[in-house]
């Protein structure tokens, strides 16, 4: 009677199936254990709306207002926070319906210049499903040049990241939806706040100027060494330094701008923008 081939391991006869089973067990059990031990925290959330903007603009306040419907004091954030919200959080104040769409996630990111890479990386990583970006800014401090520069610089980086993502995705995929961006001019209840149209013009001219000086400026260290293509990518059209919201559309950057205020609860415009963003 022909038997299955057996091996001798450490003096014990072992048949092939047993050997295979035990080998499989050796391979699989750690994987299962690993899955169990890390308890599946790796699954990235779907349909994320990103909150970005300079610090002290009111990102965390907006998040908490949508979550808790009240004002909650906040301090400077140092880590991002992702919160799952029911779609009713976006329905305008008063009405309590619309249970049709699925819940979404809001990702709050720190606005400190050293921690802005969190928001940028969320956009650039094609694996993260970013449905829209809300760029929260403080419309009451845009009278000083330093704050304008800070606000614009971050916006420039975000727009560049959105453009880059669109460029990368549209190369491989034909039907790529661009990430829309809402410039939410917060704190319009304050006396010194600028109207949204004025902020819109201000940001466009500042972005244009920034693009110009970036083109004229020095190269970064290490440029051209290992052809990192993201170094020579410019925002918008390469031929002209002028940046307008319309001009950016063909590069996959769609921008809308709306005033509001978390403090006075005047955020219905932003809510409906987010809702439209999720429906798309």
């Amino acid at each position: 009677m022909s038997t299955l081939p057996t091996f001798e391991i450490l003096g014990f006869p072992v048949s092939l199936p047993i050997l295979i089973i035990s080998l499989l067990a050796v391979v699989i059990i750690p994987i299962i254990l690993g899955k169990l031990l890390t308890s599946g925290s790796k699954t990235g959330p779907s349909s994320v709306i990103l909150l970005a903007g300079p610090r002290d603009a009111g990102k965390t306040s907006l998040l908490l207002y949508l979550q808790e419907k009240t004002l909650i004091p906040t301090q400077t954030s140092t880590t991002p926070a992702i919160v799952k919200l029911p779609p009713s959080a976006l329905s305008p104040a008063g009405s309590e319906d619309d249970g049709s769409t699925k819940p979404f996630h809001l990702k709050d990111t720190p606005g400190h210049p050293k921690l802005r890479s969190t928001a940028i990386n969320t956009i650039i990583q094609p694996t993260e499903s970013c449905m829209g970006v809300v760029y929260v800014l403080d419309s009451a401090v845009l009278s000083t040049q330093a704050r304008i520069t800070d606000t614009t610089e971050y916006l420039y980086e975000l727009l560049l990241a959105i453009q880059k993502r669109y460029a990368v995705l549209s190369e491989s995929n034909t039907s790529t939806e661009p990430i829309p961006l809402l410039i939410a001019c917060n704190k319009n209840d304050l006396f010194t706040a600028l109207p949204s149209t004025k902020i819109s013009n201000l940001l466009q001219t500042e972005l244009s100027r920034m693009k110009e000086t970036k083109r004229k400026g020095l190269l970064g260290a290490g440029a051209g060494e290992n052809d990192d293509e993201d170094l020579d990518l410019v925002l918008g059209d390469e031929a002209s330094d002028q940046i307008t919201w319309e001009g950016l559309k063909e590069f996959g950057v769609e921008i809308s701008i709306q005033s509001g205020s978390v403090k006075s609860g005047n955020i219905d415009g932003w809510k409906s923008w987010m809702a439209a963003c999720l429906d798309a």
Partner: protein
Amino acid sequence: MLDLFEVITTSGVVLWSKSYAPVKPSIINSLISDVFIEERNQPGSDGKWFKKDSYTLKWTLAADVGLVFVAVYQSLIHLTWIDELLDQVKKLFVALYGEKIKASTGTKIQCHFDQYFEASLRSLERQAGGAATTRPTNVSTDDPSSDGNGGGFSDGDEWSSPPPMPGVNNTGISDFQHRTPYSSEKPNPLIEVTPSATSAPVSPATMAQALLQASGRRPGRPRRNRKSAGPSSASSTHASSGEERSPARLSNKPKRGKEMRIWGEDGIAAEANDERKLDYSAGISTDDEQDTLRPKPEAIDQDTWGTRTNKGDFLLKDLDYEIDGILKQANSAENNEETNRKGPGGIASGLVGGAMGYLRNFVGGKTLTREDTEKAISGVMTHLLEKNVAREAAVQICDSVQTSLVGQKTGSFQSIESLVKLAMEDALRKILTPTTSLDLLREIGQVRETEERPYVISVVGVNGVGKSTNLSKISFFLLQNKLKVLIAACDTFRSGAVEQLRVHARNLKELSEREGGVVELYEKGYGKDAANIAKDAVSYAGTNGFDVVLIDTAGRRHNDQRLMSSLEKFAKFANPDKILMVGEALVGSDSVQQARNFNAAFGKERKLDGFIISKCDTVGDMVGTLISMVFATGIPVVFLGVGQNYTDLRTLNVKWAVGLLMS
């Protein structure tokens, strides 16, 4: 006095706060930005405190749940128990709400922490004894064992805690106070007007009298006490709630007396009864005719006094016990962890745990402790040192990375080494990322547009690091952008320095003539005061329509006080928009001290604005000087010198630098 205590999540949500005086939120924001994000400790603080305006801030972190506990108090006052309070509150808060916080992913949770906080604050203040915050009361010094009044005195001890802290027990005071009869009205304001009562002398006699008189009306207090001390109302100030209640209560007393009389409706011959009732009520509500009636209520009182006070105290005792229990648990849990770590093997359960822990090393999901990361961290540290990072900087960076890793979980199949490496990359990126815009051209444009004055840049540095060379590189860059540049030769010390700049200026003129740049040298020979020449050069540039003034200075050893002191005057006279320090990439451990000394040399108001790291082409991938200098001062790197030509000037690319450092 403690002004503010806040519990904040790292995502920026204020979970709980208690303020005793208005404190601007920007105070804590600057703590977070400066210390937590930019990791710049104030000189001498050793990372233990932070001063801003007139406040001192102390904090403690609970990294595993992502919480920051901050206490803010006036710098003038020395509070010895703040550290203890922070530690205690941290343990309590984490024990009470830790699970909730973990589940909430860093957003708002409901917490009713006021009572716990008050209780721990009070007990610490009591322990501190003669600390500045406890008022010099003599009530508490009496020994409570002398007689029945002792109970009253020990209660008085409780009440003597600083009034601005509205707490469990203080609600008791107001309750009690409104039960005291009219005749004792006099001492009452002292008890009621809480904030001002701190310094008001309360004689033990009046206090005791008040207590005695009050004792007759004590029944029912514990229950009410408990109610009013409930979580919902604990934060409301007791003084106001007391005021609301007081008129009703006071008017109640005569009413009750009248009702009694009406009560006897059935009898005509109810007169005798009536009188008795009248007497009875009078005995309680007023103390005027107490001579005959006094002994009776007092006798009852003395029996019930103790228990009542005990009951009255029970609420507080409960809380204190609870707090003690939580703290003990937290402490014992800590100890257990330590012992577990010391002896993982031995017992059967220990073996299983050990095996699981061993497995976790490979498959991930291991919660890191300081010991776990020790090996990986020391590996990364050696790596940094090999990259020419100054030892001081390397040690501190590794330390903060290690602290940030404690309590984190490794991902699936992620080794500790790779986790440490990722964290280190993050830390380096954070250090090198500038906090302000470094776009020189835009700034020059803005200054020219709005202020119509030349933009002034000056370079400083140790001898021979390449100040003049980098200055001419910058001027070449500016000339290419069609700006009018004036070079001021303020090195009036080293022979040949002016001639060297003259050659540069001639070369630059030839190179840029075609492109329309204008460059000129402003020189006044040797031996003169550099600060004055710089000032003259700036005004000359202003009248002649130059866009930028570049000021070259003499090289100076950073630890020579005599040479460094002239920099302060220089900064004041020339008032440069940007003071850039040139440091060579070759320098090792000295880089930290160089950066610090130059940063401190310009006086209190002026700091360096940026670094130029020269000779980067000579060190290959050992660009550790970048990290050392930026880490020591928090000042960004503006330019890198990468070669001998005028065109070999670069801006810093953080990704590139981190890549080199981690390779």
